[in-house]
C-alpha cells in the first residue's frame, strides 16, 4: 500500500483489523468498546444495557433535562402542532416561528445582538468557521480542539496553525509571526475541554488575540449551562463575554436536544444565513427538538439551583475517587478523566465496570496516547447521592480487582487528540 492507496477500502480494512486486534487482546471478553447499546432508559441517570440496570456516568446530560416534564411536554406539543420534521432548509421552507423564537432566547440569554441556530453543534462550527475564513486567512486552533473545529478549519483554504493546549504564550508566539496590522485571523478555543475537563484561561487568550488583531471564537459545547452566573458558559464566568466575537454552543449537552448556536455582537453574523453551506444545504432542526431545547433554556435560566446541584455532585464524586486512590484530572469540573493505564488495561477496566453496572466513556488511541488512556466520567445534577455512592463502590471494587495491572498513580492528563491529522 502506498501513500495514495491502491484500493479505497484499504483504510477501512486496516481500521477493522485494529479493532479486531484490540478485542482479541482484551483481558475480558465483554462488550466491545464502541458497541454499547442502551436497551431502555430507566431514569435520567440509569439505563439498561445487556439486560442489566446500569448507572450512567458517561453522558453529557449535565442538568438532567432530557426527562424534565416541561422539556418533554414542549417537545410533544410541538410535534403535535408542526409534525415530526420541517423537511427543509432554513433558507427554504424550514424556518418555523419556533426557530426564530429560540434564536431570540439566545439573544436574550447571551446579551449579544445576534444568534443563529444550526441543526447540530458540528454544523455550527462548520458554518461559522467555514463562512468566516478562506484563502489568505489564518486560523489558530488550540491543539486539543474537537474534531468539528479541525474539520471546519480544514474545509476552508485558510492556513491552519495549532498552538499548545490552553497556552496563551504558545498562541502569542504564533500570532507574533503573522504580518502586523491585519485582521484576517481567527483564534478558536474551547471553554471546557470535553475529555480533559480543564478550562481555558480565556482572559489571557482573549487579551493575546486582541493584541494581534485576531477575532476570537469560543466553543462552549460543554460549558453552556454549566458555567457562569446565568449559565452562559466560561466566557461569562471569566467576564470576557463582551470581548469574545463569536460564541458557539451545542444543544446536545445541557440543553437536552440536538443542534448548535452561534451568538455574536457583530452584525456580519447575519450573512451566515446565505454563506454557510452547513446551514443552507441541510434540513433545519425538527419541531420537537427545537421546542424541547427552547423549554430547556427556560428551565435552566429559571432554576440556577440545578447548576448548584451539579457542582455539589461533581465535588462529591471527585472526592470519592481521590479517596479510592484514583488519579483524576486536576480541574474541578463536570468532566472527570480517570487515569486507566495502557489500552489493554483501560479496555478491561471499562468492560468490568460495565459488567458491574456502571457506564463511563472509554478513551483509547487514536484519541489519546497509548499509555495514557482514560475513563471519562461525567456528572449530572440529576445524579442522586445514592447513585454516586454506588458508582464509587463499583469503581473501588473493580479498581482493586485490576490494581495489580495498573496502580493508578499517574495523574490523568486526559490528553486527547481529535485533530485527525
Amino acid at each position, binding site marked *: 500500500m502506498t501513500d495514495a492507496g491502491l484500493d479505497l477500502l484499504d483504510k477501512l480494512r486496516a481500521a477493522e483489523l485494529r479493532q479486531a486486534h484490540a478485542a482479541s487482546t482484551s483481558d475480558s471478553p465483554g462488550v466491545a468498546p464502541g458497541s454499547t447499546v442502551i436497551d431502555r432508559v430507566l431514569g435520567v441517570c440509569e439505563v439498561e444495557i445487556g439486560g442489566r440496570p446500569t448507572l450512567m456516568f458517561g453522558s453529557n446530560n449535565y442538568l438532567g433535562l432530557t426527562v424534565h416534564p416541561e422539556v418533554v411536554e414542549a417537545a410533544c406539543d410541538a410535534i403535535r402542532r408542526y409534525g415530526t420534521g420541517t423537511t427543509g432548509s432554513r433558507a427554504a421552507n424550514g424556518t418555523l416561528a419556533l426557530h426564530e423564537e429560540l434564536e431570540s432566547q439566545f439573544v436574550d440569554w447571551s446579551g449579544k445582538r445576534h444568534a443563529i441556530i444550526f441543526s447540530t453543534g458540528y454544523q455550527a462550527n462548520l458554518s461559522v468557521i467555514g463562512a468566516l475564513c478562506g484563502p489568505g486567512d489564518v486560523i489558530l486552533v488550540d*491543539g486539543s480542539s474537537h474534531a468539528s473545529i479541525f474539520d471546519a478549519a480544514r474545509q476552508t483554504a485558510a*492556513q491552519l*496553525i495549532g498552538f499548545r493546549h490552553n497556552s496563551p504564550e504558545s498562541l502569542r*508566539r504564533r500570532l507574533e509571526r503573522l504580518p502586523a496590522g491585519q485582521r484576517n485571523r481567527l483564534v478558536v478555543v474551547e471553554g471546557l475541554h470535553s475529555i480533559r475537563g480543564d478550562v481555558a484561561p480565556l482572559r489571557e487568550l482573549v487579551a493575546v488575540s486582541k493584541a494581534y488583531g485576531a477575532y476570537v471564537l469560543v466553543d462552549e459545547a460543554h460549558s453552556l449551562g454549566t458555567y457562569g452566573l446565568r449559565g452562559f458558559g466560561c466566557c461569562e464566568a471569566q467576564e470576557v463575554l463582551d470581548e469574545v466575537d463569536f460564541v458557539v454552543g451545542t444543544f446536545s449537552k445541557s440543553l437536552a436536544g440536538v443542534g448548535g448556536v452561534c451568538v455574536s455582537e457583530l452584525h456580519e453574523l447575519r450573512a451566515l444565513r446565505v454563506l454557510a453551506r452547513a446551514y443552507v444545504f441541510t434540513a433545519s432542526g425538527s419541531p420537537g427538538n427545537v421546542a424541547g431545547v427552547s423549554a430547556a433554556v427556560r428551565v435552566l435560566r429559571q432554576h440556577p439551583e440545578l447548576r448548584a446541584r451539579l457542582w455539589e455532585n461533581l465535588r462529591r464524586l471527585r472526592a470519592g475517587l481521590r479517596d479510592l486512590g484514583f488519579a483524576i484530572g486536576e480541574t474541578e469540573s463536570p468532566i472527570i478523566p480517570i487515569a486507566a493505564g495502557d489500552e489493554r488495561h483501560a479496555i478491561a477496566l471499562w468492560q468490568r465496570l460495565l459488567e458491574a453496572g456502571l457506564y463511563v466513556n472509554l478513551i483509547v488511541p*487514536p484519541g*489519546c496516547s497509548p499509555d495514557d488512556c482514560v475513563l471519562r466520567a461525567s456528572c449530572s445534577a440529576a445524579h442522586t447521592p445514592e447513585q454516586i455512592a454506588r458508582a464509587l463502590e463499583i469503581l473501588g471494587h473493580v479498581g482493586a480487582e485490576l490494581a495489580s495491572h495498573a496502580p493508578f498513580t499517574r495523574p490523568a492528563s486526559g490528553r486527547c487528540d481529535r*485533530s485527525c*491529522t
Partner: protein
Amino acid sequence: MLSWLSMSRPISRERLEEGVLDVLKSVSRRPIEPTLDSDLAADLGFDSLLTLEAIAELEDRFDLSIPLNEVPLSRKVSRIVAHLEELLEERET
C-alpha cells in the same frame, strides 16, 4: 539550552536535519534512532497526537509556524526537513 537558530542568519541543511532528528527523539515516548529515511508512523511509532506535538516543538525550536494543512502527506523525515527548509526560505525572503 543551545539556541538552534539565529534569526539573523539562515540555518544550514545539516543543522536543520540535526534539529529535526533531535526534536523527534525528545518528543517520542520511547527511545528511537530516527534517520532521514524513517517514516514517522511506520518506523518511529508516531500517532497523530505525537505528530502534533512534534510539529509544535519544531515550531518553537525553529521559530516558525508550520500550517497543519500544509504538512506533507508523506511522513518521511526527509520530506519534513524539506518542508521546513521551504518555510524557512519563505521567511528569509
